[in-house]
């Protein structure tokens, strides 16, 4: 590996440096034993440096480790998205109330490790590397899901996530073995030259479908979504913010790479279409009945996984770029909603819809930010959610899956109910007279306002970001 190659790895290096810093910090505390708490306040700023470095490295291209690790437009875009998500999630979690002070550094260490795994995932172009990166990302997250004071529900959520995840990745590994057996290679660029239709290579098709199951699990696609509402519900608010958003980016980038191998009329894509429709419908229907805000967001993740898959089903450069763009938007929308949840829940408890009553009087800025996030998740103009859905649906139209588009539109209509319900509780319901509400986090309106503003700005001027994503997609599907 030559010295120039280091310049290819700049975003990962920043992330590794953050990990090293946190690691040293954990060691330092245990040695001295005293409560000299340097604190974790520096992590969001270091992560912001990571965003800048990733933006600077957007145009790098090259490959390392015998072509198993590739830098191209797609990987650099997603690394920047991961850096962005990591910054926001750590900023959100700096004062998390349910993690003890001594554990906070470790907590952030695992956040950083998971993000590193996701960055590695973005650049992995060989199946085993993909698998290893996936496991790095997942295991780091498994460790911190149970970290929620002394709440047994968090431990339950942790077990569910670990076991379900283990089963899903075991299936994925099984599928990998089928692929290896039938196509005799694990490199994606060689797999792209092979045939993937059922009649020509049935074992490979089975293998690829099972391999994708691992990522469908990460994405919380029906029927691999069962962990999603329980885990969001059980784990602490800040961890849920991270787990609800960043792993999805990793799943989407790998699915984009895998779909690039395929042509739209073949069976795997049909399976994805069916799963997408089922996911959207199921997610939206189940969300209608929920009273806990995090569970609503959990089911909405299931529905949004369905939407993202619509772009993948299109299997064209336009569709893949729409899916990538939508995953970035989804990151921002969800982090906005979680930001408000974490700002309001000072003791770390789960927020019910009734806890939002009268928010427009108690904290008008936060109510507005929540409304922007909710409208974005519905897909109303002028938010970025509308633009994202628009790109997805137009990319997939007339590619042989028009029925899917219609189902997606119907589902958007169903979803309006429960998202607007959130806004309804915040704006039209009066708070109970005798209930004492705590003050929201200080300065939460400022960064929350930045998030809401980014949603509105991307909704009005999506061009620069979308064009970049499109160029990246064209590199893998000409």
């Amino acid at each position, binding site marked *: 590996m030559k010295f120039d190659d280091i310049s290819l790895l700049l975003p990962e290096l920043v992330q590794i440096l953050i990990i090293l810093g946190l690691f040293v910090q954990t060691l330092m505390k245990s040695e001295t034993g005293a409560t000299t708490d340097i604190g974790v306040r520096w992590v969001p700023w270091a992560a912001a440096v990571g965003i800048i470095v990733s933006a600077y490295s957007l145009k790098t291209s090259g490959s390392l480790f015998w072509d198993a690790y590739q830098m191209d437009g797609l990987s650099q875009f997603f690394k920047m998205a991961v850096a962005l998500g990591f910054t926001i999630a750590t900023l959100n979690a700096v004062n998390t109330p349910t993690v003890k002070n001594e554990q906070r550094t470790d907590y952030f260490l695992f956040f950083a490790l998971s993000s590193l795994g996701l960055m590695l995932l973005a650049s992995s172009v060989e199946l085993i590397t993909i698998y290893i990166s996936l496991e790095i990302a997942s295991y780091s997250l498994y460790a911190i899901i149970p970290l929620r004071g002394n709440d047994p529900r968090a431990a339950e959520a942790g077990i569910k996530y670990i076991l379900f995840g283990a089963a899903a990745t075991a299936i994925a590994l099984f599928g990998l073995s089928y692929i290896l057996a039938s196509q005799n290679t694990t490199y994606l660029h060689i797999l792209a030259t092979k045939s993937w239709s059922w009649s020509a290579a049935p074992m490979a098709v089975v293998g690829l*479908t099972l391999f994708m199951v691992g990522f469908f699990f990460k994405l919380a696609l029906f029927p691999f979504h069962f962990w999603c509402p*329980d885990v969001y519900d059980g784990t602490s608010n800040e961890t849920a913010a991270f787990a609800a958003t960043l792993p999805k980016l990793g799943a989407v980038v790998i699915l984009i790479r895998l779909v690039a191998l395929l042509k739209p009329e073949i069976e795997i894509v049909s399976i994805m279409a069916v799963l997408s429709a089922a996911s959207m419908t199921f997610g939206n229907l*189940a969300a*209608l009945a929920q009273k806990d805000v995090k569970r609503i967001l959990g089911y909405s993740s299931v529905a949004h996984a369905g939407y993202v898959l619509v772009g993948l089903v299109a299997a064209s450069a336009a569709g893949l770029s729409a899916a990538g763009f939508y995953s970035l938007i989804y990151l921002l929308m969800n982090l906005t909603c979680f930001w408000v949840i974490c700002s309001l829940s000072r003791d770390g408890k789960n927020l019910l819809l009734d806890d939002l009553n009268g928010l427009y009087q108690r904290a008008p800025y936060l109510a507005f930010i929540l409304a922007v996030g909710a409208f974005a998740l519905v897909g109303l103009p002028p938010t970025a959610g509308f633009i994202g859905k628009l790109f997805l649906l137009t990319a997939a139209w007339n590619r042989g899956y028009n029925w899917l588009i219609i189902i997606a539109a119907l589902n958007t209509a*169903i979803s309006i109910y429960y998202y607007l319900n959130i806004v309804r509780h915040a704006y039209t319901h009066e708070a109970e007279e005798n209930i004492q509400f705590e003050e929201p986090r200080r300065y939460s309106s400022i960064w929350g306002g930045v998030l809401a503003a980014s949603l509105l700005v991307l909704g009005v001027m999506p061009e620069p970001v979308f064009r970049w994503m499109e160029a990246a997609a064209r590199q893998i599907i000409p």
Partner: protein
Amino acid sequence: MTAFIHPSLLFAFCALIVIFLPVKIGRWFPPIAAALAVFSVFKMAPGSYATFHYLGMTLKAGRVDALSMVFANVFAIQALIGFIFAFHIEDRAQHVAALMYITGAFGSVFAADYPTLFIFWEMMSVSSTFLIWLRRVPASTKAGLRYFLFHTLGGLMLLGGLLLRYKATGSWAFDPVAPDSAKIYDYLVMLGFCVNAAVIPLHAWLPDAYPEATVTGAVFMSAFTTKTAVYVLLRGFTGFEVLGVMGTLMALYGVFYATIENDTRRILAYHIVSQVGYMVAGVGIGTAMTVDGACAHAYAHILYKGLLFMSTGTLLYAAGTSKLTELGGLFKRLPMVFFWYMIAAVSISGLPLFSGFVSKTMTITGAAEAHHVWLAIGMEIAAVGTFLSVGIKLPYFAFFFKEDSGRELTPIPWNMYVAMAASGVLCFIIGIYPNLLYSLLPHAVEYEPYTAWHVLQSLLLLGFTGLGFYIMRNRLKPEAKLNLDFDYFYRLVGRIVLAVARKPIEVIDSWWSEFYRVGGLKGLLKIAAGSAWFDKAAIDGVVDGSAYSVQRLGRVAALTQSGRLQQYLSTALVIALTIFALVWFL
């Protein structure tokens, strides 16, 4: 170093800083930004910079040549003086408004095409409205609203002209228009410019609004709005005969009203109309000497008008009033204010050794040499009126005439004196060393101000004007009256439009109410009863029913989330394999 730093960026960035910092710290930044702008202006080299893309257009925001540099030069210096004058202001919003206003002014000066110009033009319009509103008295609120409406009208004329021009020529470029081939859209654009240049009859906003502005806001506004308009007229419309005539008319009109006004700042506002008239006339005549004269006059005018507004603003700040009928006898208590006022007054009148002499006489001579003798005579009459009203009447009735009324004076902050002194010194320096100014002008200057004849003629004119004042001094006493101006017509038009809109609508409305009451109501009630029944029974049934069923379906769907992991795993696998099998094998 030929790097180009657009001064607008400096001021806009400074505005961002000032918004977020507490004002006691933030108020240091505008003078620093202005000093940096002065530095950048002096370092500028001619060329075309700052090309950017917006909405599919390629726009150039950095046209630097002799014409834009001379205006940028004086804008930067006046910005610095103005911000020193405004240093004591503890209202953050006023600083931000002034900064955005100056951002707009610089942007307009360096704009190379119409869309850029329009953006900065409107920025100036909005920010200057705030400089009026932030005085926070009812009269200022009303005046600011009228000001804003009128400037929006001007901006719309500009927008209409530039859009029509794009449709006709396909180009956004802001270049000189040939007078013989000017089309409707060129005249529309010129009208838009003339609003800001306060050309009669579009000028009434100026004497209406400037006296109601804040003490420091008026200092900024006197410099930038009208001179930006002069700049764009110079850039686009030199040689238009009509401007020559209107300019001279403006010059006379302004001094006419200045002689009969009572409010000190209104006198000065009419004076702006008058002095800008000189510049507009210079644009209209269009020869090299008159264009140079217009630029030189603009340069000198910004400095001495700024000083005039600063000194009368200081009077307003100290004594609490700007009406001549209420002032008087303040010489002993405010001698320095009087001194700097007189420096500016003799500059504006064109006394030798001060800046007005080297600029005003150039314009008049240029007019005469281009054989527009009547225009030259008109300008000389205006010069008489200028000295009469601003040079003698205003200071005499403000500082002398009466015994000191003993009214309490607010102490004047040191920065106001510093700013006035800086302005006054500059007026004097330019007066005795005119080449400092002449070297900035776009065309080579062949005019020699300090000849024996020129000096004598000025002294004769001014001296005997003084004699005239002495003879007429009783008649020229200020009276507390409101003088009607063209704004009477603006308001009339507004009232007519309102009445016209009201009357027919009133008639129709009462007729309709009658018909509704007698005829329509009963039938309507019957139809309403029928639709209400249909709505409740049929439609609500369907809609609510479907909504409830979807919700019930949702509850059923949520039941799958039993909470038990083994059930999750098995359900997932079963469903997944079923789907896979169906798709693979069908």
